[in-house]
Each structure stands twice: as C-alpha cells, then as structure tokens.
C-alpha cells in the first residue's frame, strides 16, 4: 500500500485504529454483558449492578436451565433439524447443480430448467398460500414441515452450479472418455473438487437451520415440538408480560434466580453452537460470498 508521510495521515491512522477497535468491541460487548448477567448473583442482577463483569460469580442459572426439560428438549430438536435439514439440503444441492452445470447443447432444456428454478426467487406466493398449502399437504404439526418446504435452497443450487461450471472441463471430459457415467463422474471427480463450495454451502445451511424459528411457530402447535430459537422467542415474548414475571418471580426467588439471569443464560446457551462453528464460517464464507458473483 502506498503511504503518505504527512503528520495528518499519521494522526488519522492513530484514530482509525482506535475508532475501529471501539466499533469492533461494540459488536461484542452486548454479548459480554449478557454473559456477565448469566454468571452473576441474583441480587446484583436485580440491583442492576452488573456491567461487563459478573458480580458474585455463580452458575446457578445455567444449572437450572440445563435441568429444564423443555429447554434441553428444544435444543435436541434444533440439533435434529440442523442434522437432517443440512443433509437434505446438501444432497439436493449436489444432485441438482451437477446436471444444471452442463450446457444447453449437452442437456436439452437445461436453460428452461434453470429459469424454472430462478423464477421463484423473484416472485413468491407469500405467507398465506404457503401456510394453507402446508396444511393441505398434511405437514401441520409435523417435524418435516421444517425440512421439506425449504429442502431446495435455490440460491445455493445456483452458486454450486456456477462453481461446477468453473471447474476445468478437461477433467470431466477425460472421465467421460474413460467410459464413466454421470454418477461415477459426480462421485469420483466432481465432489472431491467441490469440497470448498460444499463446506461453505453446508455451513450456511447449518446456520440457517439453527437460526430458523418462525416456521415452527406457525406450523407446529405444540410448544414441546419447537426448536430452540422458537422456544427462546416465546420465552422472551412472555417475559415482557408483567404478570408472568410476577408469577414466576416467587418460584425463582427461592432458587436465588431472577428472570433476567435465567434469560441471559438461555440466550448464551442458544448462541454457543454458532460460536463453535464460527471459526469455520470465517474460513469459508468470504470465498463463498464471492463464489457466485465472480461468474457472469
């Protein structure tokens, strides 16, 4: 990088570091505050004396939450959803992108099929018709209402398709020359070469499934079937209801807990999986974001 030597620029560099440093911290400080609340003594929490450092360090809130069957149950449902949902997504991405990566002259109708997949990203039926459809198809109150409607992630399919088209054609041609059919070529040649793209799209699918909450709230009537984020959403909405706080307050007090520190630990636990995957996300997503946009 070309550097100007003026004092003005030096001052700018100094403040730039400071400003960006503070900015970066503001994105993490709220999380630290919640963490501190979750590890603090109830008295301090209620007295609003907790800043960024826990006061009266204890893990009572976490112990309570982890013994709560509803919370653990929802967490397991979320994990189930992430596992099955991502597997289904990845399978459909691969199986759809590979044929579409061929050219029109190799696969008649390919262009039309690509348009067929692109159109729903421009125009959609919206909430009500989709809801009625799920109901009519019999997926209401069914775990698979969370998996099947979103099984084909069209943007990911397109990204993958472009990625495969970017692979060197000679390798594929050599494979066909050697008499390999499409399934063999896909398994032995294409997939190993597509691992970076698969990793990126897989991670996005995982994060998407972990964070999804709205669909469960409208398709599953029994809260016991809700994934974690949906349960969290209802807990937070409830806590804004004063009466609930009054009622639960007595019970909680006996356990030296306040609604606030309980909720804080629930929030932290809901965040843990994302934090765990985050280093991998970092590694892959910048490549992933530019994957599709470089192709024209």
């Amino acid at each position, binding site marked *: *990088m*070309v550097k*100007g030597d*003026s004092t003005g*620029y030096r001052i700018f560099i100094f403040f*730039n570091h400071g400003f*960006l*440093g503070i900015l*970066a911290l503001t*994105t993490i400080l709220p999380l630290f505050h*919640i963490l501190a609340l979750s590890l603090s003594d109830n008295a301090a929490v*209620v007295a*609003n004396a907790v800043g960024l450092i826990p006061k009266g360090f204890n893990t009572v809130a976490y112990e309570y939450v982890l013994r709560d069957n509803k919370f653990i149950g929802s967490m397991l449902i979320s994990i189930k959803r992430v596992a099955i949902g991502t597997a289904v997504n990845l399978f459909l991405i691969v*199986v759809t992108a*590979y*044929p579409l990566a*061929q050219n029109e002259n*190799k*696969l*008649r109708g390919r262009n039309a*099929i690509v348009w*067929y*997949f692109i159109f*729903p990203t421009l*125009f959609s*039926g*919206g*909430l*009500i*018709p*989709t*809801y*009625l*459809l799920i109901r009519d*198809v019999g997926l209401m109150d069914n775990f698979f209402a969370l998996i*099947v*409607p979103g*099984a*084909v992630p069209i943007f990911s399919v397109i990204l993958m398709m472009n990625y495969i088209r970017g692979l060197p054609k000679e390798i594929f041609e050599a494979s066909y020359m050697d008499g390999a*059919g*499409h399934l063999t070529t896909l398994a032995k040649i294409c997939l190993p070469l597509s691992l970076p793209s698969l990793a990126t799209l897989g991670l996005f699918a995982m*994060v998407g499934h*972990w*964070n*999804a*909450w*709205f669909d469960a709230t*409208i398709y599953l009537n029994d809260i016991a079937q809700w994934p974690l*984020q949906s349960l*969290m*959403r209802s807990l*937070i909405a409830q806590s804004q209801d004063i009466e609930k706080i009054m009622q639960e307050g007595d019970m909680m007090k006996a356990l030296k807990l306040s609604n*606030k520190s309980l*909720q804080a630990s629930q*929030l932290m636990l*809901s*965040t843990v999986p994302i934090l765990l995957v985050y280093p991998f996300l*970092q590694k892959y997503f*910048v490549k992933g974001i*530019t994957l599709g946009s470089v192709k024209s």
Partner: protein
Amino acid sequence: MKQDYAIILMPHVIKMMVALPEGEDGMSSRKTARIWNYLTLNATLYCMLVPAIVLVFIFNYVPMYGLIIAFQDYQPTSGFWGSRFVGLDWFKLMVAMPDFKQILWNTVVIALLKIVIGTIVAIVFSLLLHEIRSKIFKRSVQTLTYLPYFLSWVIIGGIFINILSTNGGLINNVLQQLGFDPIFFLGSNTWFRPTVIFTDIWKNFGWNSILYLAALAGINEELYETAVIDGANRWKQTVYVTLPGISSTIILLACLSLGGILSAGFEQILVLYNPAVYQTGDILDTFLYRMGLVDGQFSLGAALGLMQAIVGFLLILLSYKLAERYANYRIF
C-alpha cells in the same frame, strides 16, 4: 437406486444388442438411434433433477397458484376450488383500510433508511478498514464485526430487549447516571424506528462490508502510484482513485437492494415490536401476519401478499435492468 444402475447400463446393453455403426463423436448415424442414445445417456441427469423439480413445484409454484384466493372469499372448508369468486373486492377493502397507508409508509421509510444508511456505514467501514496495515488487527476487527450477522434476531432481539429496557437495562442505566431521563427505545413511537434501523445496521454492517472490501482490494496499485507522483495525499487518493475504483460495486449493490424495498425486516420487527409502536413500526409483513394468519383472514392476507409480490417482482426487474445499464453487470 436400482433404476439408476439400469439407466447407466442401458446404453452399453443397447450397443451390444444392436451393434450400431458409430460415428466419430460416438453417436450412430441414424437419427432415432442418436436420440435414444442421447436420452439414455442423459436420463441419469434428468432423473437427478426430478426431486428438486418436484419439490420446487409443490412448495414454490403451487402457492403462487394459491394467490388466487386473493380474488375469492376463501373458506377453509371449501378450499381453493370451492370458494366464491369476488374479484377485486379484497383489494378495494385493502386500500380503503385506515391503517393501510400508514403501514405502507412505515415499510418504505424503514426499508429505505436501512438501505441508504446501511450502505454508507458499510462503505465507510470498509474504507477505514482498508487503511489498516496490520493484518492481525484487520482480521480481529473482521472477526468481531461479522459475528452478529450469524446470530438470529431472536437472540439479538433478546439481547437488545434486555439492554434497552427501561427497567434496569444497561443503556438506560448509563443514561440515568449521566443525568438523562430513561428512553423507551422499544416502547415509544419516537424511538422505535431509529432503534430498529440502528440495530439492523449494527447487526449487518460487517457482513455488508465484505463485498466492498473485496472491491477495494481489487483496485490497481499503479493507480495509487500515479496519484502519488502527481502529488496527491492520502485523502486525495481516496477521492480520486479509491472511490471511483469501487463505484461500480456501489452502484451494483445499490441497484440490487432496490428489490427489497417492500421487505423492511419481518423477523426483526416481529421480535422487537409491540402494540404501542404499531403506528410507526408496523410494516406490511407484520400486518399481513397478524391479520392474515393470526386473525385468519386468509383472503385479505393473500391480497396483501399478492400486491407485495407483484411490486417486488417489478422492482427486482427494474433493479436488474438498472444494474445492467449503470454497472455493466449481467445477472443472467
């Protein structure tokens, strides 16, 4: 599974049985044989597409047909086919609703402010970050600022509801210690919109800056060297080299975001809002959800959805055309 093997083996079986003369490109000279050969070779490919085609048809195309209930007096018992046709009645009702104009206004205002301010913040942030030379510092800042993007609005909303609370929230505590009155960030019509916009930008600015950072890295070094020779200091370099260098990216992203004007952030607002702030915070999607789903007015909800989908579609087409014209970017 067995069928796949049959499909793979078929061309070889046929070749053996029929012993067709083969041309140089591996296909026989007879047309029907060629087509048959083609179909069987490619049958695998077409079969691979079947699951996705079927799923997209059921869950993406059938609901489009379902929009027909916007023109019917839909009764759950009669279904799509049996409900009475009422033409444009729902649309007339929709436009006549007292809240409709306000909700439309809320949606557009919130969406536009998010897009405009968000873009400026992302650009400024990436420009500043671009000036950092230390790779470790840069990576640390990126790591921290990208994180909120990956957390759901349930979590982020939960965090903000906590720290913005008037009953012991961190922010109001600080304000009160500084001598100010507590602010009802999420409870007053004056503060709700700014809070929504601010928290959205806070969540996304890191992620939004990725493309700008990539564009900045792509500017030719020689342009800077020429500018230095011409006596430009760093500021002048920014104005005359950097900004023009990423202008096409800026225009492209601005054009593409046009299509999202009617989507002002459904999940975020659903998590953060309450009846006290409907006046400034209720958007098309939340209104549709309450009325169409919670209250069960399916036809009215579908009418709203149809309007939104059509306008959105036109806006997206417009945005693609603009991107083509002004940023030389062809999507298709």
